[in-house]
């Protein structure tokens, strides 16, 4: 069943995130994708939204299609104006990529090209609107298209520090849903109790919520997130569990797998994020029973 069909029939969807290389060595990406083919519903290919220059998501998506794997690519507004964005969306459709998630992007000050110009011609809501318009046969200016693309679109809730910021994000998400997003991807979830409260808050959005499950690779990473992202709500118990583990790598995989398993009862799907350790995805899925 396709991602879109599973989503609309409220089946549990499993997405895995895989980055394109900084460079053109695609061996790792393709090998890692082959390892989980058939075990996930789609592979999410981020673009340069985190500010690090790399091969574009469009090419990554095409590689997945060539492997026979369904794919979702990121689109964002910092680097391209409305012409480029619309062009890319139509190109994606032609190349067999019909799933797009419109994401927030890091500020250029966090980029590895700090002197690059920020574009932000339109915002995420306008981009979603533009994509919906394309699917209706017209571009943003209302000119008719020769051949009409179709898309399944999603949006994100950006990481937040406190409840006030979260409320703002939820309001923003509602606008994005109104503009055409049919699912929402959340920031990484490390605390299921806290996430239950989050779910209460976003219930009104009325679209499938897909939380991100993040692979914690080390104690230092857990401590870093706990210190730098208070909104992530990493508990002392979790830190203790990792510290005491005889093999922290294995423990991180177990934690991620267990989180996915628990999510099955709570939401309509997950996105697994391993940031560089995509070769561990099969192990995580094993633990999760997927």
């Amino acid at each position, binding site marked *: 069943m396709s991602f879109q069909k599973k989503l609309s029939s409220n089946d549990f969807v499993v997405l895995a995130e895989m980055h394109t290389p900084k460079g053109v060595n695609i061996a790792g990406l393709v090998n890692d994708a082959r390892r989980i083919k058939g075990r996930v519903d789609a592979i999410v290919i981020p673009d340069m939204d985190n500010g690090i220059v790399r091969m574009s998501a469009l090419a990554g998506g095409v590689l997945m299609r060539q492997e026979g794997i369904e794919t979702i690519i990121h689109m964002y507004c910092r680097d391209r104006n409305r012409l480029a964005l619309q062009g890319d969306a139509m190109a994606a459709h032609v190349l067999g990529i019909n799933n797009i998630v419109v994401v927030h992007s890091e500020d250029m000050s966090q980029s590895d090209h700090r002197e690059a110009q920020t574009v932000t011609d339109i915002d995420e809501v306008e981009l979603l609107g533009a994509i919906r318009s394309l699917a209706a046969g017209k571009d943003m200016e209302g000119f008719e298209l020769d051949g009409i693309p179709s898309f399944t679109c999603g949006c994100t809730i950006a990481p937040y520090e406190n409840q006030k910021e979260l409320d703002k994000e939820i309001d923003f998400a509602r606008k994005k849903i109104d503009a055409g997003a049919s699912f929402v991807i959340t920031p990484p979830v490390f605390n299921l109790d806290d996430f239950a409260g989050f779910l209460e808050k976003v219930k009104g959005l009325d679209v499938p919520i897909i939380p991100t499950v993040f692979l914690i690779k080390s104690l*230092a990473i857990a401590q870093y997130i706990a210190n730098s992202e208070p909104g992530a709500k990493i508990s002392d118990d979790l830190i203790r569990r990792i510290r005491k583990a005889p093999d922290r790598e294995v423990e991180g995989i177990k934690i991620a797998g267990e989180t996915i398993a628990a999510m099955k009862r709570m939401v309509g799907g997950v996105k697994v994020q391993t940031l560089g350790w995509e070769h561990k995805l099969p192990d995580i899925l094993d633990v999760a029973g997927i």
Partner: protein
Amino acid sequence: MQNTKELPTSNKVLVIGGGLGGIRTALDLAEAEKDVILVDKSYNIGGLMTQLDRTFPTNNCDLCTLSPNLSEGGRQKHIELEAMTTVTGITGEKGNFKATLRTEPRYINLEKCTACGECYKQFPQWVRFTPGLDHRAPTCMRYPQAIPQAYSIDLAKCDDVEALVKVCPAGAIQLDDIGRNREVRCGSVVLAMGADLFDPSHLDYLAYATQPDVVTSLEYERILSASGPTQGQLIRPSNKKQPKKIAWIQCVGSRGIQKGAGAHCSSACCMFALKEAIVTKERFGENIETTIFYMDMRTFGKDYELYYQRAKDEFGVRFIHSRPHSVVQEEGEKDLKLSYTLEGNSSQITEEFDMVVLATGFKVSEESRELLEKLGLETNSSNFPTTPGFNAVVTSRPGIYVCGTLQEPKDIPETMVQASAAACMAAKDIAATPITEDEIEALPPERDISGEEPRVGVFICDCGENIGAVADVDELVKFAGQLPGVVVAAAKGHGCSRESMEQIKATIVEEGLNRVVMAACSPRTHESKFQELIRQAGLNKYLLEMANIRDQSTWVHGNAPQAATQKSKDLIHMAVGAAIASKPLSEHSLPMNKDVLVVGGGVTGMTSALELADQGFKVYLAEKTSSLGGVAKSLHKTLEGDDVTALVEDLVSRTKAHEKIEVITGALIVDHNGMPGMFTTGMQVGKQMFYRRIEHGVTIMATGALPNRPAKYLLGENDRVGTQIDLQAILAEDLQKVQSWDNVVMIQCVGSRDEENPNCSRICCQSAVKNGLRLLEINPDARVFVLYRDLRTYGFQEEYYQKAREKGIIFVRYTTDNPPRVEKSGDTVSVGFTDPILGMDLTVAADYLCLSTGLVADKDSTEELAMVFKLQRTHDGYFLEDHIKLRPVDMAMPGFYVAGTAHSPKSIRESLVQARAAASRAQTLLARDSINLGAASARVDGDKCAACLICVRACPFDVPFINAEGYSEIDPAQCHGCGLCASECPAKAIQLMQFEDDRILAKIEDLFDRLEAKA
């Protein structure tokens, strides 16, 4: 052995002094392909350490740890060794020095002397050999493994020249030797002449000159040493009986105590005395009483405090905090009477001892002083050359560097660190001169042995007493001779000596041997040497098998000689079996990645990075926080007054600007694999956790330590209580506040030397003295109390301690059973303590209470990095070096080096020395162009392979794949030789070369041969 090529250029380093420091400097330079002239005034290199019995804190005998270093010294192609040589002057400047050397006559031709010992046997009075207490002669063959391996003649004592010349079977004695003068050119100079020990002869009250049973600590060391004048018997020089009660008197010739003593602390004597007391107890029985009279126990080195506690608690060494008044022996008495007083009690105590050991300190020798003067170097009040605060190996004359005890008194590990740092600096002034192909000794072609019947040669070492005294070597030779396949069996004395090696080589060729068994010591230390030997004899080096009859038999079964002989036979039998099954193997190599990963962007990491980048290496500097600078960012000045803030700013700006350095901040290391020369390390970088992989050849760990903040004495509860770092900030920023203070109290050892953190933090005593002096500069009327346990201002810091006392800082000792009492009292903090001299309890209302909290390891961080990189740590969370004495910068994992406070607490000055040492050690590896992967790789037998994919899945490095012919293939260049696939393969289609089944089985079969025969 000696390289006689005379380079006309000044492209080499002159290292003066062939002690431990000089040898390390020379080896580091040579391994980095730089040419060195190493001169030593003595007959052999080795210096002071070769006279020691055992070394702290492991109590190992040091000869066997040192001698591989020395023989390395003899083998190095880049090193020209000039023994019995002094430097009489140096002219010119950095990059182009001209040095004049004077070599004294040895009267022995080094090329001919085989060190057989015949001359010494016949005419011991004329030949220099015995070291230490023996007053007959200074030393030549000072110890059995000496380099150069030759004796020397004391012609002045010889009265029958002809007889002496005749006795030498090699005809090496040449009496027309007149020595020589020569001039050499060099680009830089390293001074490593070491130090002399203080001579206490003129101190009548210590009776050293008059009483034979009063000895210096070095003389005591010689008495304990197995190669010393008493063959390791502990006896009183006066009556040759074992002493029952021994006293050590500390600080003889140090801390400005006696007439002629230097103002400095000699740093190593406390540990030296502890070691001698412990070894005495350990080896000569509990019934010997050992007492140490001390002023402050200065056990500030890595894990040294634990050693001190062990001496006290485990070995029952008695410690008396007192400076003895005198040592006398009354008429007709045999014992020495030592009189002293105790704190808080004015009456004199007299106690009898039968030996007294004076812990004599270091001083600059007269010869060194003269040379320093000739070179025009600035020196301090004790004649040590002065060096800048942040580069302790640089002298006042550009291009001339210094290391070891000549720079400042220190122990062996710190000497080794400084020696490498000096090599790092000296190397910058010259260019590398890689050995060209035709300079490498041409090896004979490898003999094709296929189709030959096995012809095994078994060579059995007696290793001096090590094997020979326990196992019956003659019997072993007889036994080996009758084993199937063995054509030669012979005893070889020290098989690793030059002479024996030549004989073995000749035997291999003459007898047409095609397998060799060395029944000797550990392959860990000697296998490569013997492999090289048989390769020179035309055999593939993997046709060697070693039977470790020393470590595995005679050492562990020293008290059962018969059983040890039998076990040695078994080991030899097994080795012969394995040798017969061995096959010639080829080695694989890969190009070396010359990039460097430095982990940690504090002052240490930046210094290592800059030194390597300046030498042209690409450096990745990974820092986990968002900015460079580390703990030093919160410091202002050092004890000596050097500006830390300026240092940090300078390092940060140079690091960031350097085109060869890539700084990666916010880097969290998550994975790592590979081998030295081809590592890959993965890290998550920055807020977005971008995953990045760095490929590098070596790694330097400079991750630092954390300032300790234990919740003690109201720290964190009261704003009038802070740490030395807090106080330093106030002293720099809020002078008005400081001027308002009447009383300031400092408490030392807070959170150090206790149960939780048993070690000494090393830096807090100097911080207290530094901040106390600064405080009095700002507010001369303030009263400053320092409550301490032992004041550890080692080396030249002692002078600042004396200055602090002169300026009126009040130092009061406390003990752990009566610690200071602290409570809040209105606007001040009340500190109660007992003054041991007055014997009274005092209370001070402190305006500021400063706790000396020191450093603790960043345990979470080192633990995780240790897991990722597979490194070892100490019990308290610091990284563990490979050898605590001789390899204090290298880690056990090859290609890893440690520097700064990640190794142990130390000052910035000391951290920077180690940073440069790490850079030097790294360069020794980076100088290579290829990595030898050895021959241990997995090989697949295609006929047996069922393509079941088990090896493909088992391999942690993803090497095996199923090839076009349908069976598993393993690329030997990528194989790491771990053997996992070989052990997993169900069809036994995979064999790990060097560890093939038939080779292992042959061993086992031969072992059980005897058991079966018995049954």
